Every structure is written in structure tokens, then in C-alpha cells.
């Protein structure tokens, strides 16, 4: 029987969320290869956009892929190369970060970055009806980060919530720890922290604990790391909630792409996985103890 080759190109696991996304992609590929012998997968991880373009070129030149599942490192640089894949006749699935030209992909499985920021912002608004002072940790300077922060700002607009400062914690525990330490030195009064990511939330919590100010403020991370969900479920007063941005969207996208080849199910279209607020009430549903993230 003819084998179908599906190429999967995703950014390398350089921070927690990406690690989770990598994990889901890898396990899904292994599972699908075992289930469907007629499917062959090529998985490549890239540390920068140029490397990702290389990977995609290699898949075309040497692996004759029939489908590409790609989570673009950045939108613009990947648009033309992915378009070339499409033009070669292959199926294209795009995850999370849309390409800068419409209509290239057959299937789009996306997170919602502005929505992630907006949902987070709405939670702050809800928790701080009378306003308050917060600090914000941002991710690696990228469009994603900008979209999230813009969404967040839009949500808290006019709520009386004052953002004391924003710094980049680069979705990194250590950087977030350092930044938060300095925020704590600088601001005697902080009511809450938008860490915007669970890795950074861990760094922030470390700094707060060290300063002995854990009781003064609460922290909202994001992306649904299992330890954080656990704390939400346990009713931790510092970690009141979380906002999803499921790294498992890579699994969803790969699985749907595979379905296109092994079944007759219609899979093309656009699937936006909205960011959902997780609170103590619904936390159990989002707790996957086996995930590395």
C-alpha cells in the first residue's frame, strides 16, 4: 500500500509551553504511526524561523511529503515557504500562528492569543472591581506576546486597574524570578501579578515566597501547566485561576490531518480553540497528570 508522508514542523522546546506542545506532537506521532501503518511522519523542531524554513524545504526535497503540519515560528517568514508546499499539491495544516496570507492552509487549528489576553484581563477586572495595582511579566518579544498584552489591556481598560510596570520574563522561570524580585524591591504595594504564563508564574511565586509577600498578592499565569491547575483545584488563594492555551493543539492538528488521509471525515476548515478560564470549579477537567507540562 502507498504510504502517506506527513511532515510536522514545530518550534523547538525552548520554553514550557513549547515543550508541552512538542510532547503532544511527539506522542501523537508515535501513536498514529503505530495505529496506521500507512502513515509515515517526519517530525522536525526548529530553533529559529530560518531553520524552520530549511526543515520544510528538506521535507519537500527528500521526503516527498503529502501533508505538512506546521506551527510557524513567525508568520511572515513562513508564509511563502508554506505556500510553496501548498502549491506542490500537499495538504497544509497550520497550527496556532496564522500565516500572513489567507487561504493557504486546508486546516487551521488555532489558539486565540488576543483572547488569551482578554480572558486574563477580564478575570482581573472581575477580581478587582475597585481597581488595584498590578505588575505584568511579558514573554519573549514576539507578535504573540504583543497580541496577548494588547488583549489584556483592552480588557482592563477603564477598570481602574493600574499596571505599575511590565518587563519581559521571556517565558522563562529564571528570568521571571529575577524580574519579580526587582518588582518587589521597587513596589511596596502590589495587589496582583499577571505572569501571563505558568513557567513565569513559577518564577514569580519563588520571588514572592522569598520576599515573604506571598499573602499580599495573587498571581495569574496561563497555558494550563498541570502543577498550576492542581493549585487552582486545591483552592490556593495565590493561584486563583488559570487561562488555557492548550499545548495539545499540536496533537489535535496532527490527528485531524491524519484523519484526512485515513478516513473520509471532512476535516478542512478552521478550528479556533478558545482560551478558557479555569477556576476551582472546573479545574479537574483540565488536569492531565501525565503531561510533562
Amino acid at each position: 500500500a502507498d504510504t502517506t508522508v506527513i511532515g510536522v514542523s514545530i518550534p523547538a522546546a525552548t520554553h514550557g509551553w513549547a515543550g508541552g506542545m512538542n510532547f503532544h506532537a511527539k506522542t501523537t506521532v508515535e501513536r498514529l504511526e503505530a495505529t496506521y501503518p500507512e502513515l509515515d511522519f517526519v517530525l522536525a523542531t526548529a530553533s529559529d524561523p530560518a531553520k524552520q524554513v530549511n526543515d520544510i524545504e528538506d521535507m519537500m526535497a527528500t521526503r516527498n511529503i503529502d501533508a505538512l503540519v506546521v506551527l510557524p515560528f513567525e508568520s511572515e517568514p513562513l508564509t511563502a515557504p508554506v505556500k510553496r508546499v501548498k502549491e506542490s499539491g500537499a495538504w497544509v495544516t497550520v497550527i496556532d500562528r496564522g500565516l500572513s496570507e489567507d487561504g493557504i492552509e486546508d486546516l487551521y487549528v488555532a489558539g486565540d492569543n488576543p483572547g488569551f489576553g482578554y480572558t486574563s484581563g477580564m478575570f482581573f477586572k472581575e477580581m478587582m472591581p475597585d481597581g488595584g495595582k498590578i505588575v505584568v511579566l511579558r514573554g519573549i518579544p514576539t507578535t504573540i506576546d504583543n497580541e496577548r498584552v494588547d488583549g489584556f489591556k483592552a480588557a482592563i481598560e477603564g477598570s481602574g486597574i493600574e499596571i505599575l510596570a511590565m518587563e519581559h520574563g521571556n517565558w522563562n522561570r529564571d528570568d521571571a524570578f529575577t524580574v519579580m524580585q526587582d518588582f518587589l524591591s521597587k513596589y511596596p504595594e502590589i495587589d496582583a501579578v499577571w505572569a501571563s504564563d505558568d513557567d513565569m508564574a513559577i518564577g514569580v511565586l519563588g520571588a514572592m515566597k522569598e520576599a515573604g509577600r506571598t499573602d499580599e498578592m495573587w498571581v495569574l499565569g496561563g497555558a494550563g501547566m498541570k502543577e498550576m491547575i492542581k493549585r487552582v483545584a486545591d483552592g490556593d488563594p495565590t493561584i486563583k485561576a488559570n487561562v488555557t492555551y492548550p499545548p495539545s493543539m499540536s496533537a489535535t492538528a496532527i490527528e485531524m490531518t491524519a484523519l484526512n488521509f485515513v478516513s473520509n471525515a471532512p476535516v478542512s476548515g478552521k478550528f479556533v480553540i478558545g482560551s478558557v478560564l479555569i477556576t476551582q470549579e472546573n479545574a479537574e477537567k483540565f488536569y492531565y497528570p501525565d503531561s510533562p507540562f
Partner: protein
Amino acid sequence: MAETTTNAPGKGGFKFDIQALGPILALIALVVIGYLLNPDFLASKNITNVLSRSAFIGIMAVGMTFVITAGGLDLSVGSMTAFIAGIMIMVMNGLIPALGTTWGVILVGMGVGLMLGAAAGALNGILITRMGIEAFIVTLGMMVIFRSLVTWMADGGTISLNFSLGSIYEPVYYGGLFGIRWPIIVFAVVAVLGEIAMRHTAYGRHCAAIGSNEQVARYSAVHVKNVRLMTYIVLGVLVGLASVLYVPRLGSASNSTGLLWELETIAAVIIGGTLLSGGYGRVWGTVVGVLILGLIDNILNLTDLVSPYLNGAIQGVIIILAVVLQRARTSSR
């Protein structure tokens, strides 16, 4: 075992001895492995891909060979690429209202890229030669500065070239002459000129002399500071040239553009047999080094033998092995 007194690395480079052959053997081994793993490896399309994407690192590595031969180092080339590409794109986008989406705009952009490269190289070189600061520190500082400037220019995001201008510009990366892509042609020309400059011009000799013993060079009427400054300027121009070819490939620049290219460039130079401590360099070796590095990535994509997580480990092992192959020299550091 008490070894010989001469700290004889790279025995002069005239003889084709095992050391010279080392990197070539490594390259051949990689090609054979690639072919065995997947016969498509030698398909002209794959070769074209590998060569043209190696061109960026390759062009810069030729310039880096001179810098290192003259006893210097440049850690800023990767982020300099990002910075130059960013400025080029902003300038070109800015000119569209005045000049339209024409080749004219692109030519201006290219000119800006090359000049900016020269200026950035000159800045590095002046700080190093006139202020007497160590190259490592100057270029490390500039690396951080350029990267930060790109982030700032892009407002944390991506600086994108106007789409229709991009389509005009694209052939500069994807097009070519007689079926050979431009980046490959440019890389080849730069490499040949570099090899000639290194071996057959006074400039190349002066670089080696400075790297071998600065005092001696000075006493021999070599204008040490100018020669060294020039190595950084030439490298800067080549970084500009690499950017000119890079922009049409991805049509954008961001703070992840050119990440770690400096280390890849330096690694290519050293794998090729140039001495990191200066005094001896070979451009053809650098070309081999660039190809070795380019092929490793490509070969790892040919198969799924190893977890992609371990790609790095394999790269690291091959980098070290390529140099072990030429280790006959008793290196001092």
C-alpha cells in the same frame, strides 16, 4: 611522552597532509552517510537547497576567516544580520510611497544593507583597534546591542517587507543563472575571491602576520591597525551581503533572525582548519566547514533515526569529530 618543542599548528598549509584532508574526509563521510540514508539526498533539488541556505553562514564565514586569521573574533555577526535586515526592510517599506514597488527601491535597500554592514564592521573595528578593547568584549557588547535594537525596531514583533515588493525581490534568493541560485553563485564568488585574497595578495599575508605576531608585523611596515580594521569592515560588508540575500528568503526580520549564527560561523571557520589564535587561515577550509555544518542539519532531517531532541547532541559530536580528524596538531588551547 615529551613532545616536540615547536608549537607547530597547521604546518604552513602548503602541503596537503592529513590535517588538510581532515575536514574534507569529514565532508565526504557526511555525503556518503546522507546518500545511504536517503538517495534523494543527492537529488539536485536537495543539493541546491543545502547550498543556498548555507550561503548566509558561508559568506560571513569567509569574512570571519580573515578576522580570525588576523587574531580577532566577531561575535556580533548574527544579530548584525538581523539588524541590517530590519533596517533594510524598514527603508524599503518607507520608500514605497515615494518610488512605488519597483526594483529601484530594492536596489536602494541593497545599498543600505551593504553600507550599514560596512559601518557596523567599522564600528567594531574602530573600538577594537583604536580603543584597544578586546574583540571578544566589543563584539559581545555589539551582539547584545544589535539584537536589542532589532527587538525595539520591530516593537517586539516582526518587521515585514511589503508583500508585493517581496515578490519582486524574491528572485534574488530563489532565482539564478543557468539553474544555479543566486546565493550559491554569490557564495562561490565570495569564496573564490576570499581564497585569492588570502593566498595571493599582500593583504592575506598581512592578516596572517598580524595574527602570528603583531609586533613583527608592525616592525615589518605592516599597518597593523588598518589591516585589522579592514578585516572587520570586510566582514561587515559580507554580513550586509548575506542580509541582502536573506531578506528575499523570509521577507522579514525579527529578534530571532540570525540567532547563534555567530557561533555557527566561527565553528565553520575553525572546523576548516583556521587557527582560532590567529596566524593561519584557509578560506577553502572554511567553505568545507560551512558545508559540513549545513549538511548535518539536512541529514538529520532525512531520517527519523533519532529523536529531534537529540539533534543538537549529534551536531555537537560531529563538530568535535570534524576537528579531531585534523588534530595531529598539538593545540595549545
